[in-house]
């Protein structure tokens, strides 16, 4: 069984789906329609049928705009949310239906870093307490000296002076706090890190420091990342593979270089063209009509069709499946499949 798991992907997500019910109580579900009382429940379809694998040593980036379900995917992988449908396998073992107790050894392997370092550290714990807690929890047999050594080593590796260990989170700047949050994830020697927008709340010069730290940890510890972000320039730098999500569905999955040099899905193209460029002051921005529709009671068909310039009748009726392209990328788009993107653009 060990051999089987090392050959396959480290993380394997199959047909993952998450719905959040909006109407929880019985009375909330009652609606008056045409003079009759009926029961009706509304649900936010945050993630729809996402299939994805992550191999050891990869840094897979999930990108998309607010409400596309990228954080929900991250939380399900980290075991913080239970999926409505679908399966998550880690190293060959199904993990989405495990009990809290059975999940414990896996929490040591899969660690999560959150966006806001002001909220993810307990304000009443010193840095030392915050860093020692996970080590003791996952290694109950460690002696005090071993715990202390472990914590000091990790603190040094993320550039936090061990002499600061007695301080509280509020005494640190945002960048330092994010380093401490990363240190906390690294103290238990994880294999897999789920990072949800880890640098979005930081200033440019500090973003570079934290991103460098994460790259360094990837090299020296052989980490695998699932990196959630909305910032495409970070993706290009950090990611080995990119997943583009729109309204909870996958639009495109491709190697980073392929995605940036040859994006295929109309949404990916629009997203790339919208990033403000430093050197080019007259970019060809592809304007999308309208705004992201609500993910409540999603209509059938392609989720992107209301803003897509290439949408036709088939897009209204049938949800596109991801299809492998000659260069290896996966694209879910009828227009790409029928090869009518270029012809339509020239008209």
């Amino acid at each position: 069984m060990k051999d089987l798991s090392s050959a396959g992907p480290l993380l394997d997500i199959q047909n993952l789906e998450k719905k959040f019910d909006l109407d929880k109580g019985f009375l909330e579900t009652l609606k008056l329609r045409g003079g009759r009382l009926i029961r009706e429940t509304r649900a936010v379809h945050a993630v729809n049928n996402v299939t994805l694998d992550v191999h050891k040593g990869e840094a897979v980036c999930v990108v998309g705009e607010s409400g596309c379900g990228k954080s929900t995917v991250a939380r399900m992988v980290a075991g913080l949310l239970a999926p409505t449908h679908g399966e998550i396998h880690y190293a060959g073992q199904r993990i989405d239906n495990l009990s809290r107790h059975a999940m414990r050894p896996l929490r040591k392997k899969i660690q999560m870093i959150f966006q806001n370092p002001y909220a993810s550290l307990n304000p009443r714990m010193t840095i030392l307490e915050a860093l020692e807690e996970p080590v003791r929890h996952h290694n109950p047999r460690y002696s005090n000296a071993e715990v202390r050594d472990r914590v000091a080593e990790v603190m040094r590796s993320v550039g936090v002076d061990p002499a600061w260990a007695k301080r509280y989170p509020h005494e640190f700047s945002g960048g330092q706090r994010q380093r401490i949050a990363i240190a906390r994830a690294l103290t238990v020697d994880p294999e897999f890190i789920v990072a949800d927008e880890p640098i979005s709340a930081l200033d440019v010069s500090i973003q570079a420091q934290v991103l460098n730290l994460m790259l360094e940890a990837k090299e020296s510890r052989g980490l695998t990342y699932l990196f959630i972000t909305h910032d495409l320039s970070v993706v290009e730098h950090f990611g080995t593979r990119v997943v583009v999500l729109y309204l909870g569905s996958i639009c495109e999955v491709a190697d980073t270089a392929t995605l940036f040099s040859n994006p295929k899905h109309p949404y990916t193209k629009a997203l790339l063209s919208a990033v403000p460029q430093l050197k080019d002051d007259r970019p060809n921005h592809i304007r999308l009509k309208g705004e992201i529709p609500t993910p409540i009671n999603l209509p059938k068909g392609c989720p992107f069709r209301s803003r897509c310039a290439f949408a036709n009748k088939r897009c209204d009726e049938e949800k596109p499946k991801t299809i492998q392209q000659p260069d290896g990328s996966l694209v879910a788009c009828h227009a790409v499949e029928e090869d009518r993107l270029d012809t339509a653009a020239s008209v």
Partner: protein
Amino acid sequence: MSLLSVRDLTVKFAMRDQTVTALNSISFDLAKGERLGIVGESGAGKSITGFSLMNLLSRPGYIDSGQILFDGQDVVQMSEKALRSVRGNRMAMIFQDPMVTLNPVLTIGQQMVETLRAHRKLSVEEARQIAIVKLREVYIPSPEERLEQYPHELSGGMRQRIIIAIALLLDPQLIIADEPTTALDVTIQADIMELMLELCQSNQVGLILITHDLGVVSQMTERTLVMYAGRIIESGSTRSIINDPQHPYTQGLINALPQQTLPGHQLRQIPGNMPTLAQVPPGCAFNPRCEFATDTCRSQIPKISQYGDVEVACHEVHRLQTEPAREEEQA
């Protein structure tokens, strides 16, 4: 004559145990219809600059000295009454979060009509008509219906468009936009930026754009000020600052961006953090983080002087030009 002329503006905050200087003798000009970007990281004083221009600072902050000449009149010396005729009327401000600016319990229409009638003698119906015209200018579909809606019924991008429409209601000469697109998604941000650019150009409205995003500044503005710890450290045409920055901090800021390094390689980070206002180091505030710092940098505050196409406050700017460090970029 310039529309706005700021001279030696110093802003202080009186804290319980000490007084800190948030803006240290900053000076700049803005021509009529010009678009100026103010960039820097958090704590640099960008937003304080925006607030000061409207004389909107509230305790414990205050303008200690200096002049802000708007159309020849000094905003610092103005009475409350005179200020009211300037704020929102001839000078408008757009903030990052539209939900904070809009009143949640009034409809969009009530808020727009109220603003118009506060400054001009108009009937409610006349004000409504102007509001509809302005909403159409910012490409809001079916503006008549929007007037009856409450802010929570609209999406983030739509709200920011409404904020822009409100800012334009009284045909101001200057718009101060503080991180106007930071809270928006990239595709929506691109739309809003295009819209603001178009409106500023067609109506000859001056724009002061405060942001941390160098990409946004590059696309929106003609001139840029770079701020660090309450001072302007570099200013000049946006193109020169982006393509050939002179101050080590500006260089560091641009070089730290991921698109400036090959994928997967270590980014060129600036070590350390920006100092807090209470602990600004002596001499050049950037010296502890600067690889070129000398004893002069540690003791004397550099003056702004012309260097090439830009004005820069750095003792070592001449040495930087010949330093081999610059050649690495080509390698």
